């Protein structure tokens, strides 16, 4: 037994290619065949059509779905709305994350900093659904939002598009805080001192030294906030009222018109890839 194992070990040692093959066979079967295979079939099926009587998929090549996607006003509205929501969430996250990260990285006492980072990270691990549910509780009629805003003569925003943006911002905020915190923490103090020696005040230093150096990290964080918001359809079902985003359209089409659902599904994928390419020019991908 030990001898065979020893001989096998020798064979493996002398043949790195064999070792590599053994390492990669199972993962490649899983990822390349199962996963990429299903994805490819899905996107090919976007070019098929559906028999409108039987809801059966007809495997005839056509670009009808994409034509419908580009010309139907409802689809266009929803796509624009979804991208706008994703951008709004990203902007809100950046605006909230910056002061927070600035505090945890440069203002707080050094020995508190690791603890503060954990404090930002911990909610990231709370269940996605529970966090959305928390906002449903806050925004529901007579909930915390109504109670807090009542004295000012208004109620909470209720369920709808603003609620969706708010909840998504809450969900993805840590993804924005973390990269900004890291970038700010790594900022050499020498640069800031030099800027001050040259006569720049806080605001000028911030604008001309800190911001340009941290911007790639904001871009890196935005990749998460943007793409996670764009693909989401659960949050909008829970707090969005009647609001429809691209994910809801995909979901609505699955049962009756899978090719259309596939065509709609390509939209977030294409937008995300474009966004990634755009962000790559800012150097965001290397600071991930």
């Amino acid at each position, binding site marked *: 037994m030990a001898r065979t194992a020893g001989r096998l070990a020798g064979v493996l040692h002398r043949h790195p290619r064999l070792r590599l093959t053994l390492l990669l066979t199972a993962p490649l079967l899983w990822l390349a065949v199962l996963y990429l295979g299903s994805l490819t079939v899905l996107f090919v099926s976007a070019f098929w059509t559906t028999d409108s009587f039987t809801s059966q998929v007809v495997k005839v090549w056509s670009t009808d779905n994409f034509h419908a996607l580009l010309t139907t006003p409802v689809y266009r509205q929803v796509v624009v709305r979804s991208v706008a929501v994703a951008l709004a969430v990203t902007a809100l996250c950046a605006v909230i994350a910056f002061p927070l990260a600035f505090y945890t990285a440069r203002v707080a006492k050094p020995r508190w900093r690791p603890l503060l980072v954990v404090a930002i990270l911990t909610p990231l691990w709370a269940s996605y659904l529970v966090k959305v549910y*928390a906002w*449903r509780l806050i925004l529901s009629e*007579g909930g915390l939002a109504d109670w807090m805003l009542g004295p000012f003569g208004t109620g909470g925003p209720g369920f709808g598009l603003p609620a969706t943006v708010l909840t998504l911002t809450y969900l993805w*905020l840590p993804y924005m805080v973390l990269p900004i915190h890291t970038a700010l923490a790594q900022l050499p103090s020498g640069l800031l001192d030099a800027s001050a020696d040259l006569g720049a005040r806080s605001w000028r230093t911030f604008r001309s030294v800190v911001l340009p150096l941290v911007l790639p990290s904001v871009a890196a964080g935005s990749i998460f906030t943007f793409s996670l918001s764009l693909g989401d359809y659960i949050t909008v079902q829970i707090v969005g009222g009647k609001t429809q985003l691209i994910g809801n359209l995909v979901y609505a089409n699955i049962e009756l018109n899978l090719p259309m659902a596939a065509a709609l599904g390509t939209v977030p994928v294409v937008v995300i890839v474009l966004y990634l390419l755009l962000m790559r020019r800012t150097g965001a991908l290397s600071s991930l």
Partner: protein
Amino acid sequence: MHLSRPARIALRAAAALGFAVIYVPLLLVLVNSLNPDRSASWPPPGLTPHWWSVAWRNSGAREAVWVSVKAGLGATAIALVLGTLIAFAVARHRFFGRGTLSFVVVLPIALPGIVTGIALNSAFGTVLKPLGVGLGLFTVVVGHATFCIVVVFNNVVARLRRTSGSYEEAAMDLGANTFRAFADVTFPLVRSALLAGGLLAFALSFDEIVVTTFTAGPGVETLPIWIFNNMTRPQQAPVVNVVAAVLVLLSVIPIYVAQRLSADTATGSRV
């Protein structure tokens, strides 16, 4: 950076507000689980542990927890094996398409869940259905494992990159064969990364809802699906409140353990 006093105070206030926004919703979930009322109106009319005992006896929630645990364990086991294999291949070998492979591993979590979900759903429909295998727990495990591979891979590959191959070479110079070097040198080096990765994978699977929606057969209800289905039912609201509160309390565990296991991998590895 020298900040003026007002700037410092403003930043402190902004940070305090930020932390409040992060934690108030979670605290609300905890308080609301003690709310005697079925509605979520604030402030609650009182506090009672009553619904905790009701939730404890709720068979639907219990069963859903059990299904989630089974799916999570299955997916984690597969992800541990596949993720580690890829990590070793990428970190210790040079081959054509290495960069592409690292990209493909991330893809299942980078693409919107609904895209992965319907792709797997239609693939299962065309491949498994003719074989007489319907959607069920098995397909959930396959779906979850697909996007869990990346967290194991990230953890293990980060560890392997930090520890050079010279330890293994030294072991072999001393007469250990490939298996012996792995068991005595390599495995102890990556053990904590495996634990952290496995834990994160389990947490990811336990929390997942979108891919689950499309890969779970009828009657297979994971905890997130159960919460989602019962969230809008006023009758079930108190039980949902308690389950949500429990999940908030439990979520502290993985981050704590992962942080302890490997400071270098825990932070970014949800990605």
